[in-house]
């Protein structure tokens, strides 16, 4: 057994152990804490699987932003825990669920142990077209060119989710600001962090976006980091949470998908149709789209965490 193998076995066992903890933990808060470390461990697993792009996304979004969201929810919902403890479902449901889960797991495990050989892969096909796109990171090429429509539709999913979150506001607060109130004193430590970290974070976010074309990184990962910085600034109270009726805010939210769609429509004038890029402008176009997408993603992710409007609109 090599050292790398020992690391992998340890990591895999740890991931499963933390997962068991999340399911079995006594309090929701403890489970959420477990979930954040679960996300980070999973990011390591992704790195071990040679998927650095995914590792970055998992760490930033799967663990970081999701963790922040769940943590807030767990602390707000703490009073309800003791009450709902009495509603444990019966033994019958437990048995059914356990049998189902074991069946699915066993089936999957069996399939994992008899892999298709040779393993199918689109990597060679993806590699062939990279020079035409002038993009060196194959994952970016898949997201922005080969399977661009998935990315585009997923942006619409994000927008719908945000509208869904906003829709949960009481009528009178529509147009107002989300309820992410400042939690620290102006001279507190958090304020210090919110002053020091964002400049670095913004540079890192832009860097990650920029290298996306040649190395792991891209709009999602960069956007998530920018969103985190924005949230930090808002929580520390250095900048107010914007009211959701603001025109500039709406524009930032949609500029990414809008530009993407416009370029897509422009493709109708090209031989390859919707969502194709003109040969000589491929790389600049992809970069422009990625930049605006990053802006929109950062804004949407941030506002998804900030939640529905909870204050009346200022007149």
């Amino acid at each position, binding site marked *: 057994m090599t050292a790398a193998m020992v690391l992998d076995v340890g990591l895999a066992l740890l991931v499963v152990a933390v997962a068991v903890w999340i399911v079995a933990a006594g309090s929701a808060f403890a489970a959420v804490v477990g979930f954040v470390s679960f996300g980070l461990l999973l990011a390591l697993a992704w790195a071990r699987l040679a998927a650095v792009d995914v590792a970055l996304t998992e760490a930033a979004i799967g663990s970081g932003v999701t963790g922040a969201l769940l943590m807030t929810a767990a602390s707000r919902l703490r009073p309800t825990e003791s009450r709902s403890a009495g509603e444990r479902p019966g033994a019958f449901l437990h048995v059914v669920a356990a049998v189902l889960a074991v069946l699915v797991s066993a089936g999957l495990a069996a399939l994992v142990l008899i892999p298709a050989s040779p393993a199918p892969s689109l990597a060679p096909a993806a590699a062939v077209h990279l020079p035409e796109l002038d993009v060196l990171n194959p994952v970016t090429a898949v997201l922005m060119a080969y399977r661009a429509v998935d990315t585009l539709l997923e942006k619409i999913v994000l927008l719908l989710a945000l509208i869904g979150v906003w829709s949960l506001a009481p009528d009178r607060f529509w147009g107002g600001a989300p309820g992410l109130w400042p939690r620290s004193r102006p001279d507190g*430590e958090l304020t210090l962090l919110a002053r020091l970290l964002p400049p670095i974070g913004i540079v890192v976010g832009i860097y990650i976006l920029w290298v996306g074309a040649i190395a792991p990184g891209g709009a999602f990962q960069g956007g998530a980091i920018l969103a985190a910085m924005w949230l930090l600034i808002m929580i520390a109270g250095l900048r107010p949470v914007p009211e959701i009726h603001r025109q500039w805010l709406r524009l930032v939210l949609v500029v990414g998908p809008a530009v993407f769609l416009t370029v897509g429509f422009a493709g109708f004038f090209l031989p390859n149709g919707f969502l194709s890029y003109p040969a000589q402008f491929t790389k600049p176009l992809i970069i422009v789209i990625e930049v605006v997408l990053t802006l929109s993603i950062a804004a949407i992710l941030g506002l998804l965490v900030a939640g529905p409007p909870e204050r009346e609109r200022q007149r």
Partner: protein
Amino acid sequence: MRVLFDSFTVLAVSAGAVFFLAGTVGLLRFPDSLSRLHALTKADNLGLGLVVLGLLPQATGPLVALKLITVWLLAQLAGAIVTQLVARAVRRENQEA
């Protein structure tokens, strides 16, 4: 020269690992939140510092070295501030209890 660098790396990283181990044991064994924080911060500051220091000779260029140091500095900053916040929360909880 190479051997010297490598042995320095091994030494420093191992020392860092010892601090992490001690910190983790402390986190698990200490009785209250404040002393657990204490154990954890030691691991963060010194352990990570030693690991980064150990890795510096292995850096392939000044940019990589700079990134390593940045990682350490950021961890320091975040660690210090989060510790403060947790400690404050603990004190508030104690006062309420």
